């Protein structure tokens, strides 16, 4: 089970998602992200209360980040990511020293995860 909420603070919005961010909920999560694109210019994703994270969710995050960048919108992860999230990123082999080729504002979601986990 997942639940989410979008908080509005002017031009910035925060999307908080709770629960199992896993393949079982992947379709629902895609829907949440598509909705957030339509309503946000600057989106912060808060995963503080995620209970499980798997590759399908990380792919969705990457995908939504691509779309945001393409639309000249910004997407970042809140600084208080859970260890469970950082471990999943590490497990998948997503830790990066440099960001993606398509994004020029150096907001790659994976570049700082190893620093936070240390």
């Amino acid at each position: 089970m997942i639940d989410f909420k979008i908080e509005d603070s002017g031009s910035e919005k925060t999307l908080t998602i709770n629960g199992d961010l896993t393949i079982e909920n992947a379709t629902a999560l895609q829907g949440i992200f598509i909705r957030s694109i339509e309503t946000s210019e600057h989106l912060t994703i808060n995963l503080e209360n995620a209970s499980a994270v798997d590759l399908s969710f990380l792919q969705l995050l990457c995908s939504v980040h691509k779309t945001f960048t393409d639309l000249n919108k910004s997407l970042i992860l809140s600084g208080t990511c859970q260890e469970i999230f950082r471990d999943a990123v590490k497990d998948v082999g997503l830790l990066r020293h440099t960001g993606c080729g398509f994004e020029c504002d150096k907001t790659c979601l994976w570049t700082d995860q190893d620093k936070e986990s240390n």
Partner: protein
Amino acid sequence: MSNNELHRAAYVEEAYELLAELETSLLELEENLDDMEIIGTIFRALHTIKGSGSMFGFDDIASFTHDIENIFDKVRNGEMSVTKELIDLTLSARDHIKLMLDEPESADKQKAGEIIASLKDLTPQIISTNEVKTSPAPPHTVGNESEKDVTYRIRFRPPVDIFTRGINPVHLINELYPLGDCRITAQIDAIPQIVDINPEYCYTYWDIILTTGQGINAIKDVFIFIEDDCELDINIIDGGDNLDKEDVQHNLEDVFAGQGYVTNEDLPAITGSHKRIGDILLERNDISEEDLQKSLDVQKPIGEILVDSGLTDSGKIESALAEQEHVRNTLKKKDKTEQVSSSIRVASEKLDNLVNLVGELVTVQARLTQTSASRNDPELFLIAEEVERLTEELRDNTMSVRMVPIGTMYSKFKRLVRDLSSEMGKEILMSSEGADTELDKTVIERLNDPMVHLIRNSIDHGIESPDDRKSLGKPEEGMLNLAARHSGAHVVIEITDDGAGLDPEVIRGKAVEKGLIDQNAELTEKEIFALILAPGFSTAQKITSVSGRGVGMDVVKRNIEALRGSIDISSKKGEGTTITLALPLTLAIIDGLLVKIGTETFVVPLSLVEECVELTGEDISNAHGRQIANVRGEIVPYISLREKFLINGEKPDIEQIVITRVNDHRVGFVVDHVIGEHQTVIKTLGRVYKNIEGVSGATILGDGSVALIMDIPKLVQNAVKEEALINAK
């Protein structure tokens, strides 16, 4: 069987092997608590059982094993030390995993919980299953210094629908960590925009750099279940050990021409041992040579230039950097050599079929040899000879494939000794010799039960309690030794203990009481000891759960004899007992001696035959009606097979005695003619004839006729019994 069922069956098979390895390693660890290599092996076994378990739907096993794996991760990282309690509990956990595989429905969850709780008591700081992160184990260091380590570049692209098959590719990739030093980079350039993505598809693929000494097959094994559906490229990165001599020569000349001398710092440039990023990306086809050349014209780090110009993705650069660094580090450590394992796993049924086919071939070859001999055609004779040579070679090679080292049994027995001795409050150290001695896999399988019984007997009746031993001036710790060695066509296994030994007087008394022997019977010590193999014989004062019901030793004897083996007991009161088993190397094809009685042909196992001598009418009359022959001054009793098998007809003037050795006694078998050696493919006689004594099987001869294979020990045993009856009358 569906693919999924096949995969699950393969998992179960692998899990059993891993559990056996786990048990052996735990018992070894008990003797050497600080051995990091053994701890690494235990961790890897647990890790694989867990990882593959969750992949194929054995969630209970995966979850249970996960907690134990975490503990061994702590041990591996030096956060926890190995204790006897930890080993005890891990062995119990191992047994529980086995039960979960054997009979999932009877695996008690409460018991699993108790084991985990006890383990957690050993490590109060342990994190519970739900809290534990599933991050991969850090690259293990055990064996990393091996000279045989090879660095591989792996690109793994799973099928897009891998999630829907219930497989998590991350679990697969994490299986690579236990193999060695591993760098994993996920490639995400194929992930589409959020509106186009199918959230249940896997778009990620991976570049992995792995240095391992376990060979390419170990890597392939990780992906074995999806190898047909995924893209998997595994390449060895040369990293300096496959240097091209011409390149080195050329580079050396360049450096020398440039500065007039060569220093240590010039070595990488000469040997080309550190590949540059551009070279790696080129090798992987991630960029073209043109792209590389263009970028090299600009003085910026090549990776940055390529990403900035949109020619490649940062993931590719990241992966290439990882490879470069990995190889550099590996080179610093050692000169590595390529070693690719070349073993494959084959279903035992296929081997059985192969042996059957070789058996048929041996039969046909015998026919060819026989035909060629009768045709007097030198060309045909030469061909037959060549076929005979090749068949013999093929037979030996096929048999060697079925050979399994006896050491595979030893580890099981080590556990048995450990558990029984602790159950009975005894201290016993088990040692073993000749673990490499090989035996046919069928013999090994059928040997298990008799061996278990003999070991149980040694522990229960043989080795005394520590207090008793102390009072007898013996070390408190008893000794049980298992030794195996080749002896001709046999393997000899000795089970020796330093316990109380057998008391010939007590055995004799018991045998008389049970009516097994006459009060006045004259028996050697060996013959008295052999009485304990008689049905219903037991000298134990009380019946324990371990042994003492008197139903075991005769079964042991029967089982060993069914394997065409023999059992011998030697013992010294107060000092210990040695039980010696002699077993044939194989049960499928033997070398036999073909003999003829009347029109019937028989086979005597050649391994028992010592010599053949003539028996004339004069010899018979000199023996005054007794069936004995004088062989160079030695009296050898014989059995007339013509009489034994009630074969009619005239016997020749000069008969032949085939002299065999059974239980250290020479016994002759009188036949009409000795034809010669014969490769004998053993065929069982079937249920109808299973109770016929004195015949252990049959074989088909070159002319298509059937020859019975004689059960020599049984014939001797029956003759002894008959004589005893006659004497008693």
